[in-house]
Every structure is written in C-alpha cells, then in structure tokens.
C-alpha cells in the first residue's frame, strides 16, 4: 500500500513533535522548591508527628530502569496487560534503557528508546479508549475520534492534556507546558490540508503525538 505524501509528512511531524515535547519537558528549569510545595501534611521525614509544615522535595533523584519504565508506562496509561506490539517494542528497546537508577545514565539512545516505547504504549491506549464509549474513557472523554481534528474543541484537547499530566507526571501541567502543547496542536493542524483536517486519522494522530511526547518526558521516567 503506497502512502500519501500528506500522511508521511504528518507521521514524520508527529514523531519529531513527540521528540521535541519529550526534550522540552525535561524539567531542567524547574526549581526544587516552590511555594506550592509547602504542605500542611505531617512531617513525612519523621513519621510520628501529624502536625507541622514540611516542604516536599520534588527534585528528580533516580531513573527508572528498563523494566520499571515499561511497567510504569502501562500503569499510568491504565493498560493492565501489554499488547503483542508493546511486548515486541519493549524487547527491541530494553537494551537501550537504563540498567540502574543513576541519573547520569541518561543518553541519546535511551531517550530514543523511551520515545519509541511510549509511542507503542500510546498506540495501545488509543486503541483501548477509542473502543470505549466517551463517558467511560479515562483520558479522552471529550474527543470524537470519528471526526477530524478541525472539529476538535480546544477544551477537549486541554482536558485530555490535563488528565494525561496527572496520570503520567503525577501533577497538574504547568501553564508553560500547557502552552507548549497547545502550540504543538496548532503546528500539527497547520501541516494538514483542509481535507486532511476532516479525516478521523488526524485526530488520532494528534493524540498519539501528544500522548507519546508526554509519556516520554522526564517526569515519566524519573523518581
């Protein structure tokens, strides 16, 4: 089956955008402490007191190793059992992923491996959610996958990003992250012709790229 230029262009763009998002959300500039981190929790470092205020350290301190990355991706996307394609992709990529938790093990092959694995995991997530009724979906309840991206409400995109952030990153997305993803959506839209924007594949591809980019970002594979 021959692929149209438009499809190839879109596919390549999704891949590059996913990689860009993965690099963009490396959290390098995030401060260790913030006012939002002050908590009225009891002291998590003492274990006995249930009063007092303690800041929570959010600085990444370790990598997930290969199997931890794989199982984490499945966990945070709500997939109880991996698909054959995911098993195969993990088998191909596990050698490039970290063998232990030292942060200095991060390298380019590892990032590429994580991005590829994230893409396959997101493929599985989308297949699972598309098959569900909208009100039963965990990540894309406001998305009509039968319609093209041109008909996708901005609020639905934002809502899905928010849901993925809380699940993949364990927190709400920051304004700058949300802005970057909105910009990604706009750039993705701009690569499509008017006719392509009406095709349902465009909606799926948008969320594939968004999901993969978020799932392959720093917060998703570090402690």
């Amino acid at each position, binding site marked *: 089956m021959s692929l149209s230029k438009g499809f190839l262009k879109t596919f390549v763009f999704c891949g590059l955008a996913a990689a860009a998002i993965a690099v963009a959300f490396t959290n390098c500039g995030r401060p260790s402490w913030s006012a939002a981190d002050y908590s009225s929790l009891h002291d998590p470092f003492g274990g006995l007191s249930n009063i007092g205020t303690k800041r929570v350290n959010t600085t990444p301190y*370790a990598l997930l190793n290969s199997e931890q990355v794989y199982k984490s991706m499945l966990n945070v996307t709500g997939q109880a059992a991996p698909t054959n394609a995911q098993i195969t992709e993990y088998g191909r990529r596990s050698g490039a992923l970290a063998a232990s938790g030292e942060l200095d093990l991060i390298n380019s092959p590892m990032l590429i491996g994580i991005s590829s694995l994230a893409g396959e995991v997101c493929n599985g997530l989308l297949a699972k959610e598309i098959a569900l009724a909208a009100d039963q979906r965990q990540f894309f309840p406001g998305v009509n996958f039968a319609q093209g991206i041109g008909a996708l409400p901005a609020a639905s995109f934002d809502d899905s990003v928010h849901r993925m952030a809380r699940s993949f990153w364990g927190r709400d997305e920051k304004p700058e992250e949300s802005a970057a993803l909105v910009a990604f959506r706009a750039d993705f839209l701009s690569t499509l012709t008017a006719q392509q924007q009406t095709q349902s594949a465009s909606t799926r591809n948008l969320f594939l790229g968004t999901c993969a980019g978020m799932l392959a970002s720093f917060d998703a594979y570090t402690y």
Partner: protein
Amino acid sequence: MNWRLSIAAVLLTVQCPAIAQVSDQHRQEAKRLLERLVGAKLPLDHALVAQAAALVATGDRAGAAKLATSQPNFYNLTVKQMALRMSNREETLRVPLNDFAASFIGVTRDETDARELLTGNFHYKGNPNLLTGFNVRQNIADDLLASNTHYSDLDNGTIDLSTVLMRVAGQPLLIDDNKNIADNLDPAGVLTSRAFMAAHAVDGTNRRLVEFTFREFACVSIDQWADTAASDLRIGRDIDRFPGGDHFKFQTSCKGCHTGMDGFRGAFAKWDFRNNNAILSTMKGTGRAQANASAAGVMNKMNKNNTVYPGGYVMTDDSWVNNASRGTNALLFGWNGAGIDGGMGVQSFGRLVANSKRFSQCMAVRVFEAVCKKPLDPEKQKGLMMELGSTFERNGYKLKGLFETVVLRSECH
C-alpha cells in the same frame, strides 16, 4: 438543632478518618511512598493512591507501606530486581528470572525467616495449576535443573510471580546422564541454587563461591576482610608462596585474602557446575556426578595446579574453617551461634553467614538501595545500618517488614 449537627460532624470526623480530606499533597506523598516500594509509577488519581493518601492523611504511613507491599509489582519488580542483582557475577538485573530470585520473592512474600535463604532445603517454582494458558515449560530435569527455561518463561511480563510461585520442599539435582533426579544432600537455600552455582562454580577452584557469598550476603568485598595475620594452613597448593620470586609479597598481600577464602572454600569442595547443571559429587547413583572427583567426593578442581607449591593444603573433604574470626573481622561480621569456628559442607557455612550480624545489616543495605534508590554507605551510615539490622532481627528476619521499615525512614528521602 445546630449544636446537634456540630456534634454529629465532630463524631463523624473522629470515627471516620478515611473521609478526612485528601489533598493533592497527600496524594503525592502517598504516591512517592507507593512508587518506592512497587517500583513503577502510578497515576495520581489511581484508587490505590487514594487509599494510601487517606492513610497518610491520618498519619498512618506504616499502613500505606503495608498497602504497597501487598501489590504484585512489589514482588514482580522491586524484590525480583534486588534478587537478580545478587544472583549473577555481573550483578546486573538484565538477566531473566532464575531460581535464586524466585526463592527470594517467595521468602519475602511468605514472610518466612530470611536466614533460610542460606540454609533452607526448599525451592520455589511456578504452580502448574495457576499456569494454564501460559506457555511455561515445567519439566524438572530439562527446564529447572539443566536449564533456566522454566524461570525465564515465568518472566514474560504478564505472569504475576507473587501469585504463581509456590514453595516446594527439597532441592532436586540431576545425578546422571539419564535425567534421574534426587534431593540435594547438602541444601543451603540459594547458595545451592542453579543460578548461584552457574555464576560461581563453573571451572575455577570454587573460591568465587566464597567471595560472592560474602559480597552478596555480607556486603563486603574480599579485600575488606583480608587478614594477613590469620593462619595460612588451609591455603591450597595452587597459590604461589613466592609470586615473582618475592615471598614478602605473598605474606603481605596474597595471604590476606587466601587465609579467609581458602579456609571457607572447603564447604564447596564437592560441588561443581558442568553440562549446564549443578553437581554434588556424593549424590547416589552418581555415574556422571562422581566423574572429576576423588573417592571421597572432592572435586578434582579443588586440588588442581598442585605443583605450584606442593607443601600447600590438600583438600580431602568438605570441611571448612573460619579464618575471619579474629580482631576487626570478628567485629565486622558479628559471628553468632554455634559452629562459628568451622563445619562441614555448604549448609553449615550458610548458617554461619546467616546468623552473623553482618547478614542482617547487609540485607538492610540491600533493601535501602532498592527502596531509596541510593546507596547506604556501611561506613558513613554505620549507625543506620546497625539499627536497621537489629530491627530486622527483632522482627524475625522478615524481608517484607524490612522493606516497610526502610521506606518510612527519613534517611530514605
């Protein structure tokens, strides 16, 4: 009426702490605690995180830790990976599940005394009744003893090891070329597992078995317990007393490691790993097993290269002596119980190590690294190591409890 409502609200809050408000901060703390133990990320809004957060909100962090250790990934990831690193020479987790790690998972899950990992007569394997529909090979001779296929099949990522692993009494060994099997006459937990033997009993002189027993279960490398003042009576004939023509070098360097290593290696005198399976020479019906061994069952490799120093020790049985019981080594290991000066065979050697203070402390070190994702320095954090080791002993050497204790320590965060 208002005062009645107020009292009802107070009573409801006191009696139903679970409905105390759970904030995102509670969720994030609970999520971090859970993830340290289960080894994988969890969604912030996951039901398990909410359950743990409710416990954290009421101050019950210990309850949240227990919740984490009841999850499959605690065994399938955290415990498994900790054990895998200990099971091979490269200390990597990039190996498939093996019998060593399976026993570790089982002992942790079943909350039995962890000392039996060095002394016990048992093994863990997949329960055939729970493996219907999974492609797991289960022939004892072919898939458990002559290869690792049973365990690598279990490790396909879809089987829950915490559920399917079952404890089986005894440790079978192949005793001839006809795949006949008999129970191990000198069982010592994972020390006599196929994986440990495959890693350290291949060729050589079985000194590596001693080195790695202490490396993995006492967290000491050979140079840390070298003692040049101990007796050299047990040092073999294959060790040159005049390396490079210099006897002084032997006295001040080589002897230090070999006094201890050669003293202990007699425990493994009758063991070998050949043709892909572990061999104990004194097993009955030992057509193949007795090859390459003396009439007393001592493997020929234990006395090889005997022309290097003919006056050295000749191994005639599986006796061992403890040449690491003097001075600083006595303090380092904290030997305990009967039989600390010597014994016969691997099981008595395993008992020596398991009953030492150092074993408890080392398990604490291993768990700390697995949970806290950073090393515990046995020298700089000696107090913490000793405290955790003592707690481990007082709680019956239960590994699951040790994980739950460590994750709550402030030093872990």
